[in-house]
């Protein structure tokens, strides 16, 4: 094929070629675009709009009430408790599951054998049905027949009613949340650790770095930057979305002590059928998630990528 014709075939330069490419592009993205509009864009906009109405399922009419839902939210003690609980939950689960996963990752990565085994063990909760595992935890933490309290009884301590006492319920759920989240973060950290070039560790050693801590500071931690950032963002968002264990184990109780945002959204929308109100809470939820994402891209992203 003469040079000129070959060059033409690389990128359709002819109008017919370009039109063919455009058409192909539009056709290939058509199903995705349609479903995006129908299943994502429209409902999201509808949810945003709903937040400003008084819609209730089965109600004959729907009325625009502006910011009334949000005004009610500001006064709603139940919502405030839910928001506070969610933030406390995230405040416990996120740091603990991130730090814990990092520590585990460092330990596992330093082994010469058995890495895959330990990785599998800690990753198991990620692929396990949360509802089922929550039920297993309920048995474990049962005040009378559960093994945890049985063990405590054996050493003379009276264990609390972990999931039914308002003092300990959020803590217990947070503990379960850490258990569920660590494996996921662990895998991400392991991937990040193995991506650090071996020679960098060697260079540090030759440069005179003796203690593990200093090598961590000089090589591991800086190069783990992008991974850590991603893990932090993902963990924050996943823990804000906690729902399953609350829905299964405590239904927000006792006395709203374990009520979290998503559960409130659910009850307002589908137990009380106050869809407009629920939508307003969902909007607050969305704002929180967006804020977390913004934190990643604006504040930390640049500091963490070295080119």
């Amino acid at each position, binding site marked *: 094929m003469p040079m000129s014709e070959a060059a033409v075939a690389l990128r359709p330069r002819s109008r017919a070629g370009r039109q063919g490419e455009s058409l192909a592009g539009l056709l290939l993205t058509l199903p995705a675009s349609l479903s995006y509009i129908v299943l994502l864009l429209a409902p999201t906009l509808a949810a945003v709009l709903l937040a400003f109405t008084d819609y209730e399922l089965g109600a004959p009419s729907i009325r625009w009430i502006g910011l009334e839902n949000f005004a009610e939210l500001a006064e709603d003690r139940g919502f405030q408790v839910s928001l506070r609980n969610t933030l406390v939950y995230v405040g416990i689960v996120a740091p603990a599951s991130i730090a814990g996963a990092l520590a585990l990752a460092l330990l596992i990565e330093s082994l010469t054998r058995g890495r895959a085994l330990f990785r599998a063990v800690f990753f198991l909760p990620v692929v396990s049905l949360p509802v089922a595992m929550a039920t297993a935890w309920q048995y474990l933490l049962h005040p009378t027949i559960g093994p945890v309290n049985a063990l405590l009884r054996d050493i003379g301590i009276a264990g609390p009613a972990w999931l039914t006492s308002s003092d300990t319920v959020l803590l217990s759920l947070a503990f379960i949340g850490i258990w569920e989240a660590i494996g996921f973060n662990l895998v991400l950290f392991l991937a990040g650790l193995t991506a650090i070039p071996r*020679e960098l560790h060697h260079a540090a050693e030759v440069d005179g*770095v003796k203690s593990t801590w200093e090598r961590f500071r*000089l090589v591991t931690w*800086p190069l783990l930057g992008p991974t850590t950032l991603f893990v932090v963002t993902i963990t924050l968002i996943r823990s804000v979305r906690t729902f399953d264990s609350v829905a299964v184990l405590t239904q927000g109780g006792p006395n709203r002590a374990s009520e979290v945002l998503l559960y409130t959204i659910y009850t307002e929308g589908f137990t009380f059928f106050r869809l407009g109100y629920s939508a307003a809470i969902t909007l607050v939820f969305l704002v929180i998630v967006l804020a977390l994402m913004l934190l990643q891209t604006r504040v930390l992203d640049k500091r963490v990528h070295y080119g």
Partner: protein
Amino acid sequence: MAGITIQAVTKRFGSVTALAGVSLDVQPGEFVALVGPSGCGKTTLMRVVAGIERADSGRILIAGRDVTDRRAAERDVAMVFQSYALYPHLTVAQNIAVPLLMRRLTTAQRLPLLGALWPGSRAARRAIRQDAAQAAAALGLGTMLDRRPAQLSGGQRQRVALARAIVRSPKAFLMDEPLSNLDAALRVQTRREIVDIHRRVGAATLYVTHDQAEALTMADRVAVMLGGEILQVDSPDRIYAEPQDLRVATFIGSPRINTLPVEARADGALTLDGEALGLGTPAEGALTLALRPEDLRADPSGPIQAVAEQVEFLGESLLLHGRLARAETPVTLRLPPGSRVPQGAFRVAFAPERALLFDAAGRRAPLRQAAHADV
């Protein structure tokens, strides 16, 4: 007291023997190039000397001190890695300063935040900054001190790696193929600079490369390594002209030395394809005659019959590629530019004093210039 002493070092990885009892001495101030094909064990040996790998047996001495059981941080070696291994989050100045920070500051003085306030820290850090700047200037990096590695070219990164290595005047200087990631033109220029740096630093330098030309041009002595063993250690001209092993002869020199299967008659005279070569030897068995392309010439009275196949024009010479007339053995001649290039069948003569003979085991065998053997 040698700069670097390697004594009978062995290293196995599972069932693979990477180093089979390797010994080598590098004198203080000497530049020794360790050369061999990929997988021959040279990088493993370098790592054992640096302290990054532990040998299964043998000893390593640096400046007379037995460091076999010491970790890399406690040996007084500096190393330049093939990938440069620069800390991507640190500036050029900070990269260069790391070895000094590690050696001159105490752990307390190195603490984050607090360390800078520790007594003695300010003065020490100032001295470190000056020394790092000096090392950087010596390598032409003075204007780039605040840049990060990602903002530098390959050649500049390599200089930073060099600066980091020389900044603390080490006793032993190790370089692991530092030029292999550079493009050809830069490589040639940087070779000279590295030799200059070596002279200035004055340490014992062990330089690993797979490029035999690099080894020949840069080193005081060349050590040829193959299959986990060092085959020969000699000055560049002796390695080139007097290889003691067939493998050394074929590895060193470009284009590759010609290896021609020859036989010894009962009277010791050597023949190739039945024709006498005017050489004799007491050795027996399957012998190989090795001749460098520049030691061959097209000559109608020569003893070797060949067929010409291809010509390569190199500018300063011509390479004539062909085969022996009665075997498939390839043969290459280097001819001066402007020579008349033979076509088809032609005869080859050689300088007998440049001929090398190797026995069936690849070892150097004695050669006599005679029609029959004067054994």
